[in-house]
């Protein structure tokens, strides 16, 4: 009796704590909504009548192309690598993750340089095959090309999700498909794809969010998307109210998408029957080898090695202009803020998810959904909402200026990327039955002890995965850093961007190369962890 009471009380304080943190996370968004009420005049009608429809349609079209190619680049290699044994399999299994190390705007700038009239491809053709060089002299800055380039940068989200899922589907299902007399192709469509749908959809969701938030690349390609509309209202038309309205609409659309994904996943809820035997890798027929090599190498080479080679070449060209002292400082800065923010994000995400698990009440469930909202807003809008918030506090306590402090920057990172860190931890927690909690309760373990003795150890891999994924996203982060950074503070991302928009791509290359190297190293760790989880038997 005594123990039970204490337990309940403690639980309450945990719940209370989570509510306070949730308020902190959601507060800036509330200020954005408050800003909505204060709008004096809006250009929303004007925008609707002129450009908004076109911008919205562009957005859908771009999302469609990017999603299509991301699925293609992600699912098919994942299928062959999860199911078959072939020479070079481990090489592809590692490298297929790597394009995630390249920020999408760098991918876009790099490719537009590679494909341009003065780029290596066309110059090579002009010198050696002058007759046909004209065929390739095209305007490559097209929405379709941009869609494919973004897919090259983003497909690893889908690859990693389907790679894990395909490998975890047990041998029972394969036997089932054999018994049903399904061909391999049919079993892929009828069994594996439906069973992996939740994983693939969650990967696709991330891809779509990234496309929605993309700003630098779309601007460069002259493709106006919904997000460009937000910035047009804010920067060009000087109407913050309209920008906020547009952001809130975006927020609502993304929320609906989010729930749609949930709904679809709920319908097909399925447990990777933990006990069923894993299937062995099969040998690949010779005639299929060529096909497999091409589907695996296209995303790897176009998504990683070609842009990397181009960037390295730029670095060599500008080697003598590199300021190494500055480079070290920026590397340190980037790693510093990314590490701190990632750790905070993981602690907060774990806190929410853990409390949701042990308390099982509705409030915590809702809160834990809401804190992901920040991911649906463009980074610059989060920066703006924080400025709005901090300054209205500042009016109350006029003494200190918080804007431009590291704490605010990291606060903003947490709001924006909490969803990224939450997702791997959540899927790991979901796999564990609730009986763990009940047993622990019966044993009289306090929540703290449960966390320490049960949840931390069994979710170790998920926590490391969450750290790496968030860390890489933060390494690439740009808009929040630009708007909220302290004096004299540069990161690898901001420096790359500053050179790139001033059309000095070669000078930006050493900084983007550093981002790519650091992120790649982290991805290699991630790959190791994923492999431990899938634990595919060899031979």
């Amino acid at each position: 009796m005594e123990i039970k009471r204490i337990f309940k009380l403690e639980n309450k304080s945990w719940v209370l704590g989570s509510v306070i943190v949730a308020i902190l996370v959601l507060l800036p968004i509330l200020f954005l909504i408050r800003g909505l009420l204060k709008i004096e005049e809006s250009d929303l009608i004007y925008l609707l009548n002129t450009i908004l429809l076109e911008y919205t349609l562009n957005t859908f079209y771009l999302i469609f192309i990017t999603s299509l190619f991301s699925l293609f680049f992600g699912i098919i290699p994942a299928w062959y690598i999860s199911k078959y044994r072939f020479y070079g399999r481990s090489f592809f299994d590692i490298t297929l993750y790597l394009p995630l190390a390249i920020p999408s705007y760098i991918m876009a700038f790099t490719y537009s340089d590679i494909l341009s009239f003065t780029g290596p491809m066309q110059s090579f053709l002009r010198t050696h095959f002058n007759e046909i060089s004209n065929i390739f002299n095209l305007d490559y800055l097209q929405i379709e090309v941009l869609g494919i380039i973004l897919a090259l940068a983003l497909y690893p989200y889908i690859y990693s999700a389907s790679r894990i899922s395909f490998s975890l589907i047990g041998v029972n299902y394969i036997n089932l498909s054999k018994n049903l007399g399904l061909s391999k192709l049919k079993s892929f469509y009828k069994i594996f794809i439906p069973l992996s749908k939740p994983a693939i959809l969650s990967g696709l969701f991330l891809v779509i969010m990234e496309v929605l938030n993309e700003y630098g690349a779309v601007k460069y390609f002259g493709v106006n998307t919904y997000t460009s509309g937000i910035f047009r209202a804010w920067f060009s038309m000087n109407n913050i109210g309209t920008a906020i309205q547009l952001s809130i609409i975006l927020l609502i659309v993304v929320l609906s998408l989010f729930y749609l994904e949930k709904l679809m996943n709920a319908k097909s809820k399925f447990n990777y029957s933990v006990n069923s035997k894993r299937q062995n890798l099969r040998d690949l027929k010779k005639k299929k080898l060529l096909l497999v090599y091409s589907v695996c190498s296209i995303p790897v080479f176009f998504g990683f090695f070609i842009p990397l080679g181009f960037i390295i070449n730029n670095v060599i060209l500008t080697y003598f202009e590199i300021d190494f002292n500055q480079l070290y400082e920026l590397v340190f800065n980037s790693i510093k803020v990314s590490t701190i923010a990632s750790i905070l994000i993981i602690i907060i995400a774990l806190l929410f998810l853990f409390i949701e698990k042990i308390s099982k009440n509705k409030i915590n469930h809702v809160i834990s959904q809401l804190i992901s909202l920040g991911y649906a807003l463009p980074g610059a809008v989060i920066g703006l909402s924080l400025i709005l918030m901090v300054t209205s506090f500042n009016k109350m306590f006029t003494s200190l200026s918080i804007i431009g402090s590291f704490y605010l920057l990291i606060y903003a990172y947490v709001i924006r990327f909490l969803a990224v860190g939450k997702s791997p931890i959540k899927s790991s927690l979901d796999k564990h039955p609730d009986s763990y909690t009940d047993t622990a309760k019966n044993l009289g373990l306090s929540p703290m002890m449960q966390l320490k003795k049960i949840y931390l150890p069994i979710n170790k891999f998920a926590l490391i995965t969450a750290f790496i994924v968030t860390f890489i996203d933060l390494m690439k982060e740009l808009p929040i850093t630009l708007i909220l950074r302290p004096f004299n503070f540069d990161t690898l991302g901001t420096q790359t961007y500053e050179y790139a928009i001033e059309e000095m791509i070669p000078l930006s290359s050493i900084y983007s190369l550093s981002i790519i190297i650091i992120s790649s190293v982290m991805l290699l760790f991630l790959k190791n962890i994923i492999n431990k989880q899938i634990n595919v038997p060899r031979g």
Partner: protein
Amino acid sequence: MKKIFYSILTCLLISCGSEKKSNNEVNLYSQRHYSVDKLQYENFEKLTGIKVNVIKANADELIERLKNEGENSPADLFVTVDAGKLYKAADMGLLQKISSNVINSNVSEKLKDVNGFWIPITYRARILVYSNERVSEDDLSTYEDLTNEKWRGKILVRSSSNAYNQALMSSIVANNGAEKSIEWSKGLVQNFARDPKGSDRDQVKAIAAGQGDIAIVNSYYIGLLLNSEKEEELNAGKAVKVFFPNQGENQRGSHINISGIGLAKNSPNKENAIKLMEYLTSKAGQETYVNNSYEYPANPNVSPSEIVKSWGEFKIDPLDLNMLGQFREQAIRIFDETGWK
């Protein structure tokens, strides 16, 4: 393992808090982020011992930050590459008047703010470049003439979300009135070789690639292209020639824009701020700009870099540069209504 982890975390957190504070400093909110700026600030610090702190971001974001920080703002100076943004900041009451005889005598009369809220440091012209194979110089004359039917499918320019195009359109509205500007925009859109996209440099490359014949670009970028590390880009730069529009006897001159500085209303280090502006407009400061970039100096006693000089002198549109800000919104609406993407 755990101990190492905690100690690393603590070190990181501490390193966040301990920003060195010195009293002898000046704080900049800057839209400029060229390598030459860093050099200028280092030189200034060596000379005066005043440390220059910089935050670099988009001008509108910086204005938002300034506005919200209000009296608590640490900013002394607001540096932009567009007079329109300085006008906007002044219009919102975020700047104060600058009075310094030194600056006054340093900078060219033509570039000064009539209201005294900002000072120019450099300027750039938005000019035409044309294919030296397919276009004869004699066929070119004014911005207005670009809508001529003979240029159907020949004109290249970047997107209307670009601030330089917005400034150009504002200058057209200010000079010719809204109606004529709408006509101009419509005509130009009809003559576009392709949808607006890419950077200024890309427009030049597109001429080299034969996708169009005439491009509207900033003078600054041609200089960059002609000094590229890559041979192919140099060739592209050599495939075009520079033309300053509206130079005729009764014509107003080419559109220019300044890079300039405003003094923040609540500047905490005002004296240092003025000193920095005096230095940047001085002969030494201006020479650093022209030696390390392709901008025109605001100080008439300093001549631009060799490449820039080789394009010759030109007549400047005498329009009050504050108009570039005042007509900005109208310019955007014209873009949207006439389909200049």
